[in-house]
């Protein structure tokens, strides 16, 4: 079995693969295996949550180990099926991918723990945890793959699992939301496929490192069209301004932990893909597109802020905060310089934590008061001061005020935008932050400080541990941002100079 014929030595990898290299695929393959297992045993309700939580804990450990290795050794590669790149699909993990994979795995773990106590029995039977684990697998696959078509396949893996996650429980609102989410996201990924098909027609390869190598050598090709198509496709997945409508229509409908996971992670997949594809593969075209991206980013931010101001339902308000965050990350893309991209990456990490925590917080408030309407809520500070403190920290984080985690990435972005001479974008970041602080402050004021109008209170169901941990992470990111800033800066350097990425894939060939 291990004796390989020498015939294909110029097409096949001949050196044995060390066991440690399997770390590269572990964050995607491990949850895939366990997700399949959970589907088989979906009737055994008491197995589902423990197995899912254990798996996601292992996946988190594997992602952290992967991050540590990438941090010390640089980009890691594993090419499927022993075919040398670009023939085999290369899983290529650079710092950006590893960072996002760690964040995704940890937040999936948090949401699984949070869901384990609450997901209603019927939805658990229909495989809630199997879908959650498979969605995490798809997202991790997207973050770790180095092949553009494979990225499309991982997109579809997490998309179809997320349909399941979204519709589990099958309330009328969920069916309505899932229908819109499903159709619009399917169109978005089809656009991704169109762009990829045309790209293959031009470059003749799908390996991203190979594309980065070959695209600059190609003259007279409709590359601008391709870059715009990718911008549209990933912008749709990220819920950027003109193509955002599916998000406010669906993210508030499912089980709370699902909303937390979706709002925290799934839109960031679109942002990640934008960073990966536009910055690394189409840098020249991105320069031309920067004004468009800046407009999109600015209007997304303003839409998110104004939408959050107009919502009465807390969950829908958080939904617009998600959109606002996407706008801020895209501002990093619009600036395009290293500090700008670093700010965008740091903001994405902050947003994953803070948005998930915000959805979980809304869930606790909803269970406590039986309502998520700003008109009905009140007096929670007296009842649960700890929850009030958590809410206060999250309000500061999301609004970008010290000591919350949102402050530093916004400072980085504003600085970078001013350096790049993008005054309007700076204004949009600052004004949308102000509006968002008003919306969030009103939420805090009305929900916690206003005297309660109703007396009926349901009993509090345990301390929200996951919410507490996420809040602590948010404070840590705000008070001690150095490691995150350093990681984001290194990740953005890797994006702007793809030589290391290309060398990691093709190094053995010279």
């Amino acid at each position, binding site marked *: *079995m*291990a004796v390989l014929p020498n015939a294909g030595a110029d097409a096949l*990898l001949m050196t*044995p*693969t*060390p*066991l440690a*290299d*399997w770390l590269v*695929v572990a964050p995607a*393959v491990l949850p*895939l*295996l366990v*997700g*399949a*297992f*959970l*589907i*088989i045993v*979906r009737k055994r309700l008491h197995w589902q949550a423990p197995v899912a939580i254990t798996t996601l804990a292992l996946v988190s450990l594997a992602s952290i180990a992967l991050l540590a290795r990438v941090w010390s050794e640089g980009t890691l590669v*594993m*090419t*499927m*099926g*022993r075919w040398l790149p670009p023939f*085999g699909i290369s*899983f290529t993990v650079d710092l950006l991918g590893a960072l996002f994979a760690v964040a995704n795995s940890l937040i999936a773990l948090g949401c699984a723990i949070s869901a384990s106590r609450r997901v209603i029995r019927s939805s658990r039977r229909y*495989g809630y945890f*199997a879908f959650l684990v498979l969605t995490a697998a798809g997202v991790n696959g997207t973050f770790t793959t180095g092949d553009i078509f494979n990225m499309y396949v991982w997109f579809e893996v997490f998309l179809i699992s997320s349909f399941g996650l979204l519709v589990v429980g099958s309330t009328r609102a969920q069916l309505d939301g899932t229908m819109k989410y499903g159709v619009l996201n399917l169109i978005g990924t089809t656009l991704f496929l169109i762009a990829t098909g045309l790209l293959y027609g031009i470059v003749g390869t799908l390996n991203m490192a190979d594309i980065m190598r070959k695209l600059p050598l190609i003259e007279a090709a409709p590359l601008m069209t391709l870059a715009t198509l990718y911008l549209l496709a990933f912008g749709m997945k990220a819920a950027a301004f003109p193509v955002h409508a599916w998000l406010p229509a669906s993210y508030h409908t499912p089980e709370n932990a699902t909303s937390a996971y979706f709002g925290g992670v799934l839109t960031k997949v679109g942002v990640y893909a934008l960073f990966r594809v536009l910055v690394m593969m189409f840098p020249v075209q991105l320069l031309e597109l920067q004004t468009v991206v800046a407009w999109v980013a600015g209007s997304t931010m303003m839409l998110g802020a104004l939408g959050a101001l107009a919502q009465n339902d807390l969950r829908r308000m958080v939904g617009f905060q998600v959109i606002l965050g996407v706008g801020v990350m895209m501002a990093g893309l619009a600036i395009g310089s290293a500090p700008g991209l670093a700010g965008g990456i740091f903001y994405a990490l902050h947003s994953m934590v803070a948005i998930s925590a915000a959805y979980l917080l809304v869930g606790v408030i909803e269970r406590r008061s039986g309502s998520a309407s700003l008109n009905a809520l009140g007096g929670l500070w007296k009842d649960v001061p700890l929850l009030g403190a958590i809410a206060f920290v999250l309000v500061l984080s999301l609004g970008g005020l010290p000591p919350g985690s949102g402050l530093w990435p916004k400072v980085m972005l504003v600085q970078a935008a001013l350096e790049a001479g993008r005054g309007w974008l700076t204004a949009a970041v600052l004004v949308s932050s102000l509006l968002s602080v008003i919306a969030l402050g009103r939420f805090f004021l009305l929900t916690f400080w206003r005297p309660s109008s109703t007396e009926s209170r349901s009993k509090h169901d345990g301390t929200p541990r996951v919410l507490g941990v996420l809040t602590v992470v948010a404070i840590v990111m705000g008070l001690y941002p150095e490691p995150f800033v350093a990681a984001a800066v290194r990740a953005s350097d890797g994006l702007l100079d793809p030589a290391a990425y290309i060398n990691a894939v093709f190094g053995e060939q010279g």
Partner: protein
Amino acid sequence: MKTLIFRTVAPYLTALMLLFSVFILLRGHNEPGGGFIGGLIAASAFAIYGIAFGVPATRRAMWFHPIAIAGTGLLIAALSGLTGLFSGTPLLTGVWTKSPIIGFDISNVIIFDIGVYLVVAGAVSSIALALESTEDNH
């Protein structure tokens, strides 16, 4: 679809189609065919059975829940890629073994294809049965 002719033919048709689907699956190793198309044929076989005898009878005849079949297939397909763990090769590397007893080579490629067959057969028949069962309600 309660006509006598259809109800008489359906079991034979289902059995034949299932047999044919396995043939297509195995043929796919070296010639046109494969797990996906085989799985589709198997799923159509169950769909025909469902049209003739109703969804509950089909579920009983399938014995396993279609979603469980799909999950098993996914697990088999994913596991088949892991053979590289033991031979020092990357994920999804093809491994062939000579087996003098049964007269043909066994590889993880065919195991992967069997996994695909089960995924497609399970997932598509579960969707077909879902569509058929809602028809019965009306």
